[in-house]
């Protein structure tokens, strides 16, 4: 797993030590470009933790430039998965708004627990949450767990994978999240 501290990137991107606020589009664009460079350097299949712990505040413009555009770019390309760590309720004001505006979702992690935030179909959200609890599962196992039709389960998992919210290896799916104690996901991360 690869960790990127947004606070550090911010200070590098704007060449100043004073800033702990992610505000303005130019700042957001500069921070995203640096994150993209770091991600690209890791190859075309990776799980990257984007850490907001050192960020005081993020505004709508910056949330759109950093979070939304990062998710949009990697949905279409390589198998790059993100987990957003240290995202507080304060950050979520802006992040939620841009996710809703763009129809996006992300995995947020706090105190070792993960959750999915943003816009999802009900079947996708149920599938993600069940998969998170199971650690990993095949489509068949998940459909049984959810008592859902196999095709609907498969469609939900495919959608989650395209949105880089779940990873897959062989016939198994597992959430793009930090491993949970007692789960099987660690063996794939």
């Amino acid at each position, binding site marked *: 797993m690869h960790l990127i501290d947004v606070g550090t990137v911010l200070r590098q991107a704007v060449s100043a030590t004073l800033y702990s*606020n992610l505000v303005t589009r130019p700042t957001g664009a500069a921070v995203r470009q640096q994150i993209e460079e770091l991600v690209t350097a890791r190859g075309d299949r990776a799980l990257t933790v984007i850490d907001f712990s050192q960020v005081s505040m993020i505004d709508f413009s910056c949330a759109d430039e950093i979070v939304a555009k990062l998710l949009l770019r990697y949905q279409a390309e390589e198998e790059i998965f993100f987990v957003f760590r240290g995202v507080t309720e304060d950050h979520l004001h802006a992040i939620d708004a841009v996710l809703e505006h763009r129809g996006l979702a992300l995995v947020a992690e706090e105190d070792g627990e993960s959750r999915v935030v943003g816009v999802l179909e009900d079947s996708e959200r149920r599938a993600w949450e069940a998969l998170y609890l199971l650690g990993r599962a095949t489509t068949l196992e998940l459909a049984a767990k959810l008592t859902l039709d196999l095709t609907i389960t498969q469609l939900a998992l495919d959608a989650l994978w395209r949105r880089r919210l779940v990873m897959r290896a062989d016939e198994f799916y597992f959430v793009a999240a930090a491993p949970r104690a007692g789960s099987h996901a660690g063996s794939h991360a």
Partner: protein
Amino acid sequence: MTTVITVPPTLDEEGFEQVLEQLAPLPADAKILVDARHTTWASPYGLTAMLTLGQTRAERPAFAVPEKDTTASYWARAAFFEHAEELFDLHGSYPKKSGGDSGVLLEITPIGKSEDVHEVVGRIQVKAAQIIAKELNIDPKATVGFAMTLSEVCQNIIEHAGRGGWVAVQTYKWTKRLGRRVVQIAVCDAGMGFRQSLESAPGKVLSDRWDDGAALEDAVVRGVSRFRDPGRGQGLAGVRRYVGRWEGKLSVRSGTARIALIPAWDEDLPLIEKLSPFPGSQLQVTLPERVMK
């Protein structure tokens, strides 16, 4: 010949409209004296808008400062004279800037580039937290939204004005209208304004009823931006949500129109058209003290 433009005793949104009405018949290069001698009170909107007026004149205007000491003293603390000296020939005595007024949350600050927004957001955070929770009885959670609002409205200048503007934040007891404390953000510029900004959007088709009012409705109500990027236009939408959430008021003037998001405590009109023309955009956010129901 010099035309005297009389500033009313109260220089707020309404007062500034009275100034513009006097200015409207005059060409930009007309010699004017802005007479604020009898002005006794000014909102951050009034002060920042007055500076933008100075920016719009081709002929450097004269400005008679308020005669009342307490008024002049407040304007100095708000940094009005500091900036006005660059735009007007000031007449009358006025104090040099001094500190000490807790009502000035953010003195008048020029906004011209991204770094300026970082600066004002950084400066306001601690003070805003104190004012919002302790003086306005608003949930401390609103502090972050306040800083976000400030950031977004300042960015409006950078992205859409095409020239620098001004921001100021002040808290005071709004006896005349509300009888409660309020915090006000004012952001004014004399740039291209919403209509021209939206007209510059690639492939923009103008409706039959395209004017300053329609441009304001597009930008403020519908979140339309001149940029193709579908992520644009979220800033003002976020400001609108925040202001609505805390029963505040948002008003934006541009060109000859003014649009407002009106809370229950106010009786303003949502859209006013055919105002005296003035370049750029002038925006005000008012958050009132919360009272227990």
